[in-house]
């Protein structure tokens, strides 16, 4: 088994770290949301070593929210930093920068990924979606709208990450139960403590009345 395959079948860092506190570690490996395997684009060259790029900057094209965007970056630049520092797409936030907090959550080909755990060069040729994609023609999508109605945000710095994670669950399974949607948020951390209001938003989105 070469290294590429090994990465492909291993649980992603996002899945592994989905539980952030003590109580959820037992369920950490059975998460609903799943990440793209990192390094999927790095093809092994002859002799088994990855084909080399860098260290000098190279031109890349990223498809962000349906638009091709070009920039020049060094290969070591993460997708998160490429979006924020080079393309001025700042809805995904840099908080832990280590695949723990979920503030940089984006969708890649429909699946949630921590943008800080992926190199920008690996994201070429893929459909990258950030929270900004959930506002079109002057209208907010149902997920951010539910966040606003339930007041499921305070400082709001973690919110775009939560919104993208929730959107991905509902796009993957429009009939998801509140428990399934909540499970999809376990890879994200909010410091202001808006989880209770997020649950209100989840129930509203699932059209389920929240009991006492």
């Amino acid at each position, binding site marked *: 088994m070469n290294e590429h395959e090994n990465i492909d079948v291993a649980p992603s860092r996002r899945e592994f*770290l989905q*539980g*952030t*506190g*003590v*109580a*959820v570690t037992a*369920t950490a490996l059975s998460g609903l949301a799943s990440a793209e395997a990192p390094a999927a684009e790095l093809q092994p060259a002859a002799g088994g070593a990855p084909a080399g790029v860098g260290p000098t900057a190279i031109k890349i094209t990223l498809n962000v929210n349906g638009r091709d965007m070009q920039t020049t970056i*060094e290969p*070591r*630049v993460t997708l998160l*930093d490429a979006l*924020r*520092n080079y393309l001025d797409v*700042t*809805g995904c*936030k*840099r*908080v*832990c*920068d*280590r695949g*723990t*907090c979920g*503030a940089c959550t984006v969708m890649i080909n429909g699946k949630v990924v921590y943008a800080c755990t992926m190199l920008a060069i690996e994201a070429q040729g893929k459909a990258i979606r950030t*929270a*900004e994609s*959930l*506002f079109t023609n002057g209208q*907010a*999508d149902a997920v*951010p*709208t539910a*966040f*606003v*109605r339930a*007041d499921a*945000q*305070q*400082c*709001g*710095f*973690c*919110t*775009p990450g939560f*919104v993208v994670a929730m959107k991905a669950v509902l796009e993957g399974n429009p009939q998801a139960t509140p428990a399934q949607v*909540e499970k999809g*948020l*376990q890879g*994200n*951390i*909010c*410091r*202001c*403590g*808006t*989880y*209770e*209001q997020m*649950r209100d938003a989840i129930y509203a989105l699932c059209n389920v009345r929240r009991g006492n």
Partner: protein
Amino acid sequence: MPWPANRRLIGTRVQRVDGVDKATGRAKYSYDINRPRMLHAKILRSPYAHATIKSIDTAAAEKVNGFRALYLIKKAGATVFFAGDEILAIAADTEEHCADCLREVRIEYAELPHSVKEADSLRSTTNTAGGAGANNVVAAGDYSTANFANAFDGAAATHEGEYGAAVISHQCLESHGLVAEWDDKQQNLTVWASTQAVPATAGGLQQHFKLPAGRVKCITNYMGGGFGSKFGADIQGIACAELARTARAAVKLMLDRSEEVTVGGIRPSAYGTVKVGGTKEGRVTAYEVDCYGTGGVARGPTVNFGVLPYVYGPAITNIKRRHRVTRTNIQTARAMRAPGHPQNCILTEQALDDLAARLNVNPMAMRLLNLPPNVEADAMANPRTYLGMRATIYRAEIEIIRKLCNWDQAWHPPGRGEGPIKTGMGMALHTWGGGGNGPNPTRVTINANGSVTAQSASQDLGTAQRTVMAIIVAEILGLQPSDITIVLGDSSFGPSTGSGGSTTCPGTSPAILKAAETARDAFLTALAGRLNVQANQLVIEPGVVINRGNNNQRIPWANACGMLGVPNVQGNGDWPTQQQRAQNAELRTEWQTRLSNQGVGGVQIAEVKVDTETGVVKCTRFWAVQDCGMIINKLACESQVAGGVIMGINYALYEECIFDRQTGRQVNPDMEFYKLGGIADMPRIYVHMHDMPERGVIGIGEPPTISTCAAVGNAIFNAIGVRVPHAPFTPERVLAALHARRPANP
């Protein structure tokens, strides 16, 4: 100028006016500001907890590709006092190159002895933290009521126990930092800073650069959390602006996560031995505490010494307290959400429950017996003051929460319950001052096109301050909050009091009301002139102006604005000055006890399940009853309370800055090993806002996080029948407490 008697919007649930912008990533935080040709800066920090800098060599770093500017924060010969202490900052064309530059800096240190553990500092014989003192201990308080020696004589029972809470980090998700940019002539500086005090940040930089007033502008449109840690320009603010001046380019300097945790703020620890005694009915007759804690290298107290015991102090006759600060080689503590109060609460409320258990008294009944009494003189002079009504507030709130959580049926004596997973309930009370002040100048502008703008230099930390402004202005002008354009977070709009101590809403709301009413009056006067009626014949109702001088003609708002004949009318509002209030009792009463007020109660109850085989604690349900005077936005208030509870559960169960004795460094300056609960870790939270509009506006930020940890600690005690002394109540500590109860050799 009273609050409107009939309130259409104030006190209702109003969605945030900036909610969609934030939830869809369109809102630009300081961290998100990208200026043309902007550089990136980083700070090089000491890896040692205590050392002298022997030499600094930046020659190689300055040759690295992309290097642009260097700013020395410390020079050779200086001493660093904690791992993370700032040495120099570098700006480069990209973040990647900036990291390359820092790696090439060569610094020689001479290491010095350090202490990063409270217990080590308590026993220290040398001073490793700098400044005066033969060792790391500072005597921070010694107090006793008269004749305390006999205080415990005659008590039906006494209890002595250990309680405490660890050093924790603010962990703001948007780290500290800013973007700084000078104009072409290097005379005017603009910063986009993540700060809780917009004008104070501009002021600090103005002072550093010795600039005339008005030359520094601070902008904070959106702010990603502060919790007390973001006042002023800070070292990174000065470094960033210095680099921007040297490089003649905009510079962004935001702390990374490791820096945010190691230098962005800590809450001091507090550990103590508490002895408490009482009558058989549960009336506490004596309270004695000997406590210590660390605020890093800071010398200041780590508890709120004067109000220890907490809440119940005025009802307890015999009190003795001693506090020592155990200085350590850790960053200087910063204010954190209700400074000193959670520590006080932990050192009081948990001891109370332990005594209640000894006396076989219900903890709720015991609290009712020991409430601080209403101060009659205050009640007579002004029934809206906290001192005049505190017992009344607590009694009302305890009665509400008793029913909400079904306490009478659900509570059981400590340690009861079958099976390995035990359920328990615990309660705790808290108090906070809050209260508003000026200056908080606010301007409301009504434009001929019907639009309305309100501006203030104050900031929205996530507290929904924008929405507070919009609600009040819309209430007065008969509009909807979404009709009002709010501009805030800009120091060029004038002074503001900064967002600390739950003072923003009470500090700004009366000024906004005054500005809105002044603008309304100017608007009606101008309109009356155009309509040839008296101003008092015009009345605003939702969406329309009624002309009583013309058969109650209903003029839609936009049409009325179009008739003004001038581009706009404005109204300004601000507090009367301190001096004006000192000289005019009616003015003082109006602004400080009717429009705004200070002093709140609050009661919380936790339900937990404790797995006695693994030690894992799960908080399953939580109830919070909170007053804050007149509620402006019930929705945002409930959010603040639930958020405060979640922060409290975090520091009760998960959070701790852990330091390594050998290296003097924090081992978890991150988010994987510094634990913060996710959604699955948090209970169902039931919030009840106890609205008291007659008191005026009081802040809500600090109170709801104060008593949470003590309530959780008491719930754990109730579940397993043993006290877990120190928060966070980790599985290891729960098991240790359970095992200690058992005889070593049964």
